[in-house]
């Protein structure tokens, strides 16, 4: 079978066969995601601590965020996860055209996420003086709550510290993801992903879904909990 010969060229020399290579690569990817869990974990730990120490301040901070953005991103990322999953399916079935379409859709949604986040949400936050630290001085909407508890101000700043760190780190991962998708698209055009070795697509998919999961937690933690009904 020619597939046999073809796969032989795909196997790196340290592996016995494609099966071993695939399972090693996939396991490696999962391990990488584990390191990512703990990488974000440090921030989540800090967030949990301060949220419990300064609950009012964190709720006030959450109140200053625009939930529309958060919900929109969540839907956007879930959609992109769907197209990514369908992309992996297309690669499994060796459908080059559908794979390309799904990858482009995912790419567009990922890029849109990053663009909207930076251009509109973060820039808006910046204009409203929500950048944490010694210059923290909110002057946008919904500030009654802060005026009510003006002593909370430094602690609200802590909330925004976590907000920027966590969403920033997440956005950084999105940028990397979009880069990976670009590479995948090029490979797909060269026909590399639809000849049986779909697992490159699968691994980028794993990464993409992981980044989606991080957002699934960030959305309620930052935009929702306690901040909506005050």
């Amino acid at each position, binding site marked *: 079978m020619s*597939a046999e010969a073809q*796969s032989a060229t795909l196997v790196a020399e340290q592996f016995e066969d*494609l*099966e071993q290579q695939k*399972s090693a690569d*996939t*396991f490696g990817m*999962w*391990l990488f*995601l*584990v390191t990512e*869990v*703990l990488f974000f*974990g440090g921030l*989540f*730990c800090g967030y*949990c*601590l301060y949220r*419990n*120490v300064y609950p009012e301040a964190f709720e006030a901070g959450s109140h200053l965020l625009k*939930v529309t953005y958060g*919900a929109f991103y*969540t*839907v956007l990322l*879930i*959609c992109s*996860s*769907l197209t*990514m*999953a*369908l992309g992996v*399916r297309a690669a*499994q*079935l060796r459908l080059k055209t559908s794979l390309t379409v799904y990858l482009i859709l995912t790419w567009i949604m990922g890029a849109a996420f990053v663009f909207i986040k930076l251009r509109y949400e973060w820039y808006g936050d910046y204009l409203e003086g929500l950048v944490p630290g010694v210059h923290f001085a909110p002057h946008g909407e919904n500030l009654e709550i802060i005026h009510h508890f003006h002593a909370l101000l430094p602690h609200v700043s802590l909330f925004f510290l976590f907000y920027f760190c966590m969403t920033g780190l997440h956005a950084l991962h999105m940028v990397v993801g979009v880069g990976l998708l670009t590479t995948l698209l090029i490979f797909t055009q060269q026909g590399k992903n639809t000849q*049986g*070795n*779909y697992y490159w697509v699968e691994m980028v*998919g*794993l990464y993409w*879904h*992981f980044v*989606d*999961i991080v957002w*699934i*937690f960030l*959305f*309620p*933690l930052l935009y*929702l*909990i*306690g*901040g*909506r*009904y005050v």
Partner: protein
Amino acid sequence: MFEHVHVHPKFFYVKVFLALIFLTALTTAVAYVDLGYFNTVAALVIAVVKASLVVLFFMHLKEQEGMTRVVIVAAVLWLAVFIVITLSDRFTRHWVPSNGPWEGSAITAPQSE
């Protein structure tokens, strides 16, 4: 080689997708109702369910070998240990241990001034 790989129908993914969208709407809606402490619980439970859906079905964890599952569980467990113990320190920091039965009056002087 890869012929035995299991390919799910498209609808399989769409079902998961719809569930995720529904849960997103649900968590947002719940956040607008003041349930006190329960708001946090609800938000976290929904987030965990959503994450599990993604991991199990989009990421095919269900079809991964046992070791991968162990690794994922271990990572989450480790993170939980990390956060729980750190928080437990912060919130018991002001607890002063009470008198133990082992203590004589030599160390703890009478409690009045």
